[in-house]
């Protein structure tokens, strides 16, 4: 440990980024092991970079001259003398082929044997999310303004709440500091227009943080919040392991320290921290939970496709008509061409069209004998699904549907629902898979599902993952 003799008084400050977790903690191997060898090496180079070496100093020999020599010999990774030597060691690993285990061992037992800081652990976790964008389940929440609405003649353009990272973190810390001890790490996604915030929560400010090293690596105590650029939504992952669920209801003492309630505290504090004077925000559920961040971005993101999906995705992708300067009549141009705006590169077009054509042809050939009905069916499928599920995809991995209509009487269903629902059964459907909407599309393509009679929730038009359906339409609860 770095400063074993320092006195720790209980404060409301956040956990310091340089708080070290002992490298011998077994769960560290697990969290490092999630990454690939290359990702681990990248991180090591990042830590050894001139700009960040101060924050992540490796273990060097000069630091601890007083250490006994036999202890050194026992270690398979003798301490290097300079930072450059450490860099060279990783360069060597970079050139050599091998497993990731040797990199992990080198990091944990060699160069950072004095401990992995909380910041390093956060970087490891976020690197994993960056590499595996569907490793967590994300829930989209909407930032809704509460209180006084601005007068109608006010500036109508400024509507998206602006997030200034450090100010936001300060006010978030102020909100939760008396209740939760936390460590924050902000990072920009490398592949998506998102900013990730990783919040690690521990029990209370009055607990000694060094007592349990395992506690500092507990994945159920980590909350991720992703802020998409310029839109009034945010995505959270409430990572909950089954173990924490069981401990939630054991005793009143556990209520304060159980990770779930701490996570709830953080979630409640988020909108308050985002609020400004005279501009208060509230988090509203948007009934969308998905694993793929790409899906969340296209359904609750800054772009065009938030409110036009399913049959209306042709408008979101502008796949129907081109620009008014295009002399070609719209019906002679394929949707793919419309979607790739003329100014863009043409290089990536052949692969797109070839891959999209390839699966279509065998489907139509094998399933139907009559080309006329097949053609008619594809037209219907296209009119119902638009481009969703084929050209543009927002993969939903789970779709929960509750049907309020009674299964037998379709005509009187609207009147019976107003009565007490003791004798009217409701039907719950759950679909899981990698991409449910495109699965529905495939079923419709094959003729298993009649595309004409499909309710709109099957075409992805509602852009939700949880819905209550009555008479084929989604029932939206009152905005209370």
């Amino acid at each position: 440990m770095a400063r074993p003799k320092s006195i720790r008084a209980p404060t409301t400050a956040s956990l310091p980024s340089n708080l070290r977790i002992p490298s011998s903690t077994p769960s560290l191997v697990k969290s490092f092991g999630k990454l690939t060898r290359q990702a681990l090496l990248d991180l090591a180079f990042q830590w050894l970079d001139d700009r960040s070496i101060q924050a992540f100093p490796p273990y060097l020999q000069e630091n601890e001259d007083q250490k006994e020599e036999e202890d050194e010999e026992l270690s398979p990774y003798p301490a290097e003398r300079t930072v450059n030597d450490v860099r060279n060691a990783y360069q060597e690993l970079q050139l050599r082929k091998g497993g990731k285990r040797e990199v992990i061992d080198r990091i944990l037992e060699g160069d950072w044997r004095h401990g992995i800081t909380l910041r390093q652990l956060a970087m490891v976790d976020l690197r994993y999310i960056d590499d595996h964008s569907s490793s967590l389940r994300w829930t989209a929440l909407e930032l809704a303004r509460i209180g006084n609405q601005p007068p109608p003649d006010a500036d109508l353009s400024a509507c998206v709440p602006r997030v200034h990272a450090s100010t936001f973190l300060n006010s978030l810390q102020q909100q939760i500091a008396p209740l939760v001890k936390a460590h924050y790490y902000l990072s920009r996604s490398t592949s998506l227009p998102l900013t990730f915030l990783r919040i690690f929560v521990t029990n209370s400010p009055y607990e000694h943080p060094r007592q349990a090293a395992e506690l500092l690596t507990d994945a159920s105590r980590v909350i991720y919040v992703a802020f998409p650029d310029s839109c009034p939504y945010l995505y959270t992952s409430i990572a909950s392991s089954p173990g924490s669920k069981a401990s939630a209801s054991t005793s009143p003492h556990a209520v304060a320290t159980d990770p779930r309630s701490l996570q709830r505290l953080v979630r409640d504090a988020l909108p308050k921290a985002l609020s400004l004077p005279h501009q208060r925000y509230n988090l509203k559920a948007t009934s969308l939970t998905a694993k793929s961040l790409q899906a969340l971005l296209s359904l609750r993101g800054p772009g065009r496709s938030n409110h036009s999906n399913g049959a209306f995705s042709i408008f979101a992708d502008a796949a129907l008509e081109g620009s008014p300067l295009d002399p070609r009549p719209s019906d002679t141009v394929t949707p793919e061409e419309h979607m790739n705006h003329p100014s863009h590169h043409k290089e990536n077009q052949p692969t797109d069209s070839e891959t999209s054509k390839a699966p279509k042809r065998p489907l139509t050939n094998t399933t139907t004998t009559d080309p006329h009905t097949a053609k008619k069916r594809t037209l219907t499928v296209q009119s119902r699904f638009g481009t969703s599920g084929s050209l543009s995809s927002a993969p939903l991995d789970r779709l929960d549907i509750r049907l309020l209509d009674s299964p037998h009487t379709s005509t009187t269903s609207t009147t019976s629902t107003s009565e007490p629902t003791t004798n009217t059964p409701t039907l719950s459907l759950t679909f899981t898979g990698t991409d449910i909407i495109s699965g529905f599309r495939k079923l419709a393509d094959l003729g298993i599902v009649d595309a004409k009679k499909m309710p709109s929730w099957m075409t992805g038009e509602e852009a939700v993952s949880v819905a209550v359906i009555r008479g084929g339409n989604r029932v939206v609860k009152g905005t209370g």
Partner: protein
Amino acid sequence: MDPDDLDTEISSIRAEIRTLHHRRRILTSSLLSSRPLQRLSKTHSLPPPANQSHRQQEWTDISPLLQSSASHAQTNHHRIAFSTTTFPFTDPSPNAEGKSLLGIRIDICARDGRYMKPYYVLLRRVGRSQGGDGGGKKEVKVLRHTIPSVVDMARLERVYLPLESTAEDGEEEEQLKPWKRKSRNQDLKSFVREVRKGLVVWHLRCDAVRYLRETLGVVTRGVDDDALYEDDERPWERDILGPTANTDGAGETRIAKNKFGIVSLGPTSLEAVYVRLEWEDGRVGRFKISNTGVVERAVVIGDAGRDKLTEGILTGGDGRVETLLQRLEKSTVPASPEV
């Protein structure tokens, strides 16, 4: 010969064929919709000449093409001239309350003469009007739209398209918003005007920022010659207004070295209302672009506190965003000897 070379050659030839195909189609359709040909087709279609049977045959072959391109050209003229056009659309959903929708298409032209992807708003009639009698009030409600969240559609809809029939949330709303009790009539024209205004203003702001960046010079990572800027230690920045910004990981760019000493200039968000500036000497600035394209407010902070002089230059003069760099240039000429 190396198979890789052959592959690249084949793909380049394929790409060329594709561009040529594309060009041929553009040219044929331009030709079909050209005025002389259209005029000719009119004269031919009206009186059927008896003697030239084979030429008549050619004209009847070509006339559907001519007609479709003529109507297409006319639609395009409307779209260019009015910028906001309407169209009917049928909701394919079997459970929809009202099948026929009113579509509104908004075309916006960017600075370089290209048109953006058109924006759409689809409206559905609500209330008694769908019962069939024409006497009911024609109230509409936004069903779907493709307007990005830069324009607050929910708010515009609340202001301009209030529904009379929604009684349940009316009471609470009326307490909060007493002004709405006076005018509960829908104003579709104003609604569309405000939506379009929001979009146009947003595009103008984006264009202005892009123009400023281009004037300073933009280096794209990987695309432009990196060797020139190898000694450049500045980090790359994500260009959120770039051409690929909305699709996937945007290309990373930075401002080229310039005489103003500006190392970074970019909008703080997609909305492009606030623009952040950074100078070589560590000064950081931020200004707000108003809806009319004027630099409304500016703050510049250096190590020694506020730089009121630069702030004055940013907001001074005619205040336009486009002339911001010229103003800065003018001011740096007398200032440079003393530095």
